[in-house]
């Protein structure tokens, strides 16, 4: 029974991270969602050993750097003339530095097809953030700090996106965050029933609807600034 709860908890986390990643993906053209989702999946798997067994959490500290290397190699194989790990790491660091420069220079939407460096940078940002969140939420089983880390990623997407906002993303985030909170409680309890899930998800949905109705009744939405080509803070 606990295995099912762990699986649901893991899936909720993946869903939460993918929601945030899809928001990040919208800052450039063409979409690199497949690369970013791959980064999320690898980061989640690398950060999850503590979920399988509580004492296995140190394994995540080894797996996370390996996963990062895997993501880098998958997108940009190192040139054959480079010898040794040190030279390869220097190469990838120079690529990431170039990505930072491109990000700082170009306006939104970013052009992912022109250079690979900014794509590499974004995938590494997503990987690092999701990996940290996975380590905290899955290995250390602290759901709320994990949600907050993913919220930072999502918030970054909200502040830099120039396209029209869509409602489903924050609602999906709230729903999945509610699932994570509920399931993390269930992992600590011996007894758990389906009604727990219904009540937990119900609470999250009622809270979302309340927030939505409050938002609809206030001028905050209209006050949101359009930021075409504007760099987020």
């Amino acid at each position: 029974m606990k295995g099912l709860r762990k699986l649901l908890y893991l899936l909720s986390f993946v869903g939460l991270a993918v929601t945030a990643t899809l928001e990040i993906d919208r800052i450039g053209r063409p979409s690199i969602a497949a690369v970013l989702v791959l980064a999320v999946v690898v980061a989640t798997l690398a950060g999850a050993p503590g979920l399988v067994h509580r004492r296995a959490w140190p394994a995540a500290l080894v797996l996370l750097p390996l996963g990062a290397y895997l993501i880098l190699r998958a997108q940009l194989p190192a040139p054959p003339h480079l010898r040794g790990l040190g030279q390869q790491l220097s190469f990838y660091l120079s690529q990431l530095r170039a990505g930072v420069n491109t990000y700082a220079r170009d306006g939104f939407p970013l052009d992912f097809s022109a250079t690979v460096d900014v794509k590499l940078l974004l995938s590494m940002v997503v990987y690092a953030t999701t990996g940290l969140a996975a380590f905290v939420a899955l290995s250390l089983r602290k759901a709320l700090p994990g949600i907050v880390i993913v919220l930072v990623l999502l918030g970054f997407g909200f502040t830099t996106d120039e396209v029209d906002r869509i409602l489903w993303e924050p609602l999906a985030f709230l729903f999945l965050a509610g699932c994570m909170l509920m399931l993390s409680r269930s992992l600590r309890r011996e007894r758990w029933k389906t009604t727990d899930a219904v009540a937990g998800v119900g609470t999250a949905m009622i809270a979302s609807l309340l927030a939505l109705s409050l938002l609809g009744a206030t001028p905050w939405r209209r006050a949101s600034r359009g930021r075409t080509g504007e760099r987020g803070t």
Partner: protein
Amino acid sequence: MTRPTARGVALLAIAGGTYLAARIVGTWELYLLSFAFLAATLVSWLLVLATGRKLQVARSVKPERPTAGDPLVLSFRVESDSLLPGLQATLLHAAGDLSPRDRDIEVESLGSRTRRVVTSGPWPARRGVHHLPPLLAEAEDPLGLVRTRRRFSDTLDVTVFPRLVQLPSCLLFADMGARRGGGGRRSPTLEASEFRGIRPYNAGEPLNRVDWKGTARTGQLMVREMDDPTNSDLAVLLDGHAQRVVGEPPETNFELAVQAAGSVADCALRAGHSVTLLLHERQWRQTRLSPDTKGRRRLLESLARATPRGASQLGSSLRTLFVNGLPLDRTRTLVLVVLALDRELVRSLIALRDEGMRVSLIHVAAGSFAPAASTAASSAALAAESQGLMLALASAGVLGLTLDRGDDLLSALSLKRAQGRHAQVR
């Protein structure tokens, strides 16, 4: 009191942080998230407040009159009269000291107007009177944001009786024989002051003992039976010197001593003898037991309450109790169950024997209960000293036997089996 948990407080702080971020960057999504975090805490608070008040918990123990070693199960009936579902209840320290480990008991989430029964255990019951404090229930919402605590006023006392062995006869007071009719009554004495009951009149009995109310009620001439509370056939004394208890509960020499003393007293009661039970605690606790069902129940209750809290040495207080102390001046047969032997005790017993008292002794050897880490040399020295003291007692006419851990009380204490053993030895 209903209040946010640490997680609830953290979520409120995150709501505040998200709201500030929304104010700075001005995106409605962040406002939505911040309001939703706040609303989640609010909804959870209302849920817990509404349902927590309608939570009822009751507990019971099975079996109701457990004996040491019985599998003991605690049942909790948790009931929610609220229409709102989702309350998750935890019963804190609910099993008290009945459970070997102090565990909280979790209850599956309570639906609308639901009753659930959860059990804890089974654990082997440990002899004693266990006071279970009032139940403390903690109820949380499914997200773990808000918690309330409720205290239920009922306490529960569970008495676990010692497991006694039904001896067909006892080696230690074989010469006393059995009274006529098993639970027979002794004749009243001039000093009699304790009412024991009424029975039909026998020809020749003095008429001043006729119970006229009983006669009128039954239509038959009835007489009152009186007895002297100080006049028992047998006194069983249980050593409870705190510093002489060895072993890890419930595997201690004191527990075996309780079992042995209880089995001997029970055998005497079943044979129709009245018994005085003396427990060596902070002060001497004395219980007068009549040879009937009531007396045997009192024996179990007294032994269930027995705790090794005696501070003084047994030998020094024995003579005071039997020579100067009035309560037992008519008892002529004494069975002692002791945790350790010393010279002073042996001197006291020999003195009692010289005064004409029939004295028997059961020595529960501490060595067999000592942890394995204790040195074999010290155990051997202790055993040799005890053996010497037992020989001294035997030469003075005090019947004695030694019990070790794991000994079968039935074969060690009963007369026929002991005779069988002697025959085999010969």
